[in-house]
């Protein structure tokens, strides 16, 4: 079923951009400015460069078997059983990303917008929406992303333009003179946060109907990363280091700063709306990757079989994921880094090495 479905290269790029922005757009400025201070934007830039490097690795894996997704490749490279085990671990990673994003969304909405609504309800509604997306399949998800994309980009630019009158260059001075080491360190949590998560795209890259898919992937990550850099920069310029760091959701506060002619103000919820769209696609992609993983793992006939049970499981795990916002930040700066590195960096590199080894072996077998 899913093998027949094809999405276009442009849609793929849009999905990549959405995934880079996803959760990051609203929280990243606070994280990086905590370490890099006024050079926080530099951390994002570093992380983006790293992310682009990672995409090259992912592209290399894709190129080995352009018609197989990561689960099939794992089974091909490491044999059926080890492959299945690795697939399962990879799905655990996808699972964690999905519930993590769901939780971030729930936390944001219950702290900023719907204060008294139980977080379970907020996440449930989001999950139901994602469920529809997954049920309709990647093609429909990609098309919906294409519809929302212009709106998202427009909103981001509108936000950036509308707050520029409040920007003060002094807020990011001195540029790259002090706290540079901090800026390098600040890139660390960012690696795993939006960029290593890109490994999830390996699960359905074979569905992309474009020969220049590798370029599309690179373009997506670059645009997404640069947008993040710009947003961080504007956050720092307008809010200053202190405010950016102290607020959990600085980009949202940025929206509060908009005030044009005493009329265009109080529209920060528009920021939230941009963000709903991006994070929706992020959760949906994670969910989808998880589901097709199960299809491959259990050799099911239809990937849709496991969608409904997963609504429950995702909801429950997201609810119990962490008791508070504080732990989220704690987790992000400690265990998350090696965890994401394992699946986003070590596993792909391992796959590449295994591929080389196998090729050699295969070549030797064929030659005589």
């Amino acid at each position: 079923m899913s093998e027949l479905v094809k999405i276009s290269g442009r849609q793929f790029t849009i999905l990549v951009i959405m995934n880079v922005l996803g959760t990051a757009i609203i929280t990243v400025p606070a994280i990086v400015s905590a370490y890099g201070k006024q050079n926080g934007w530099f951390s994002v830039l570093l992380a983006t460069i790293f992310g682009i490097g990672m995409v090259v690795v992912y592209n290399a894996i894709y190129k080995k078997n352009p018609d197989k997704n990561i689960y099939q490749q794992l089974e091909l490279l490491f044999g059926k059983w080890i492959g299945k085990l690795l697939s399962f671990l990879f799905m655990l990673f996808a699972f964690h990303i999905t519930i993590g994003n769901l939780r971030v969304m729930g936390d944001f909405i219950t702290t900023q917008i719907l204060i008294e609504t139980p977080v379970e309800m907020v996440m449930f509604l989001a999950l139901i929406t994602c469920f529809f997306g997954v049920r309709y399949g990647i093609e429909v998800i990609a098309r919906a992303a294409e519809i929302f994309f212009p709106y998202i980009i427009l909103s981001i630019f509108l936000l950036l333009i509308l707050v520029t009158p409040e920007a003060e260059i002094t807020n990011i001075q001195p540029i790259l003179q002090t706290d540079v080491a901090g800026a390098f360190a600040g890139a660390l949590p960012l690696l795993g946060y939006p960029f290593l998560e890109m490994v999830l795209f390996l699960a359905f890259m074979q569905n992309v109907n474009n020969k220049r898919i590798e370029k599309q992937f690179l373009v997506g990550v670059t645009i997404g990363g640069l947008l993040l850099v710009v947003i961080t920069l504007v956050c720092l310029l307008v809010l200053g280091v202190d405010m950016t760091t102290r607020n959990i959701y600085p980009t949202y506060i940025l929206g509060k700063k908009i005030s044009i002619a005493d009329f265009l103000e109080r529209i920060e919820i528009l920021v939230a709306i941009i963000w709903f769209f991006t994070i929706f696609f992020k959760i949906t992609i994670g969910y989808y990757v998880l589901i097709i993983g199960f299809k491959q793992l259990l050799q099911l006939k239809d990937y849709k079989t496991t969608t409904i049970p997963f609504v429950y499981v995702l909801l429950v795990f997201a609810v119990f994921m962490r008791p508070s916002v504080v732990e989220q930040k704690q987790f992000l700066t400690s265990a998350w880094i090696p965890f994401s590195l394992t699946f986003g960096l070590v596993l792909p590199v391992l796959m590449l090495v295994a591929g080389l080894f196998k090729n050699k072996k295969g070549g030797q077998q064929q030659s005589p």
Partner: protein
Amino acid sequence: MKRKIMILLLSFFMCLITAGCWDSHELTEMALATGLAIDKEGDEYTVTAQVLNPGEIAGAQMTNRLSVSTYSTTGKTIFEAVRRLTQTTPRKLYLSHLRIIIFGEELAEEGIGRAIDFVSRDHEMRTDFTLSIAKGMRAEDVLKILTPLEKVPANKVFSSLEMSQDAWAPTKVVHVDELIDSLTSPSKQAVLNGLYVQGDIEIGSTLDNVERVNSPTLIKIDHIGVFRHDQLIGWLDEEQSKGFNYITNNVSNTVGSVACDKPGRIVIEVINTNTELKGKTENGSPKMVVHVTSEVNIGEVLCPIDIMKKKNISDVEKKVEKKMKDIMYASIDKAKELNSDIFGFGEVLKRQVPKQWKNWEQNWDEEFTNLNVDVKADVKIRRTGTISESFLNKMEKNKKKDE
């Protein structure tokens, strides 16, 4: 598809059954607060809220009831007090449309830091209200005064603060994020604008006050209060406040006068000012250069001088420059006297000479008192108004002839 619709409907149904509408608050259930006054009594905070009566402001039929009312209560913390207000208000207090928060002078002298945390943490609070201090009085008294013209007193205060900052200059609108920025920064001290009530507070809080053409009680905007950390330690007077605004590049439009050589004054209107702060190192100690460039118009000529002459104009320019320098030095001296770096000179130094700053950071207070500040002013007269030479000259001549 039918299945999916069923599921969707069911989940809706479930939502509605389980609880539904957690966050919805009808407008008729909430009290819109426009002003909040915070005073301290012993170790308890007194919070006073000015609540709107919408029907009286925009309703179809107006009665004689007041457009606002105030409620006050005390609590160990501000959040507690705000919540306790529901005991007295008929509706839940809604703070998103807050225009102004006023601190009592007593509280300000003791320290406003603790009061601010709630303000910045609560999700209902936005950042677009202003903060001020009730000078020489309790903050709640300011909120009680009814104002003519503007039905919502808090709105009146808010808009006159903004207007006078724009057109008169010795006031400063401070928003909460700016205040927090100053409170946390080691190299900058906070300022807040002052407010006071002129006249009888009792009369001011009755309809009587707004029913007269000449309201006996008014809310007046005062000058800038200087903080050290979070404690109010002194006030700048009008000139010093103006100087402060010149240094912090906060003047957009103001009026000032200089004396002529001959008896009389020339009034100039400042239309465009730009201030550059430069931090330098001089023999290992910090030095600040304040450079003000200003474009002015001549607003009033009250002395016999031919302003069409280039020399006279440049004369006036020099005088204005001197005057500007004087008021800036005055406010710097006052700040030094109070030992409070309200101008953020420390920040500038940190930005511009980050390496040397590390040496001064520890005892910046001391360094600030001895800081060498060089003020330069550059004034350009652009226009002389709609008439060239003042008719006063001719009139005076005629007068003399008659005599």
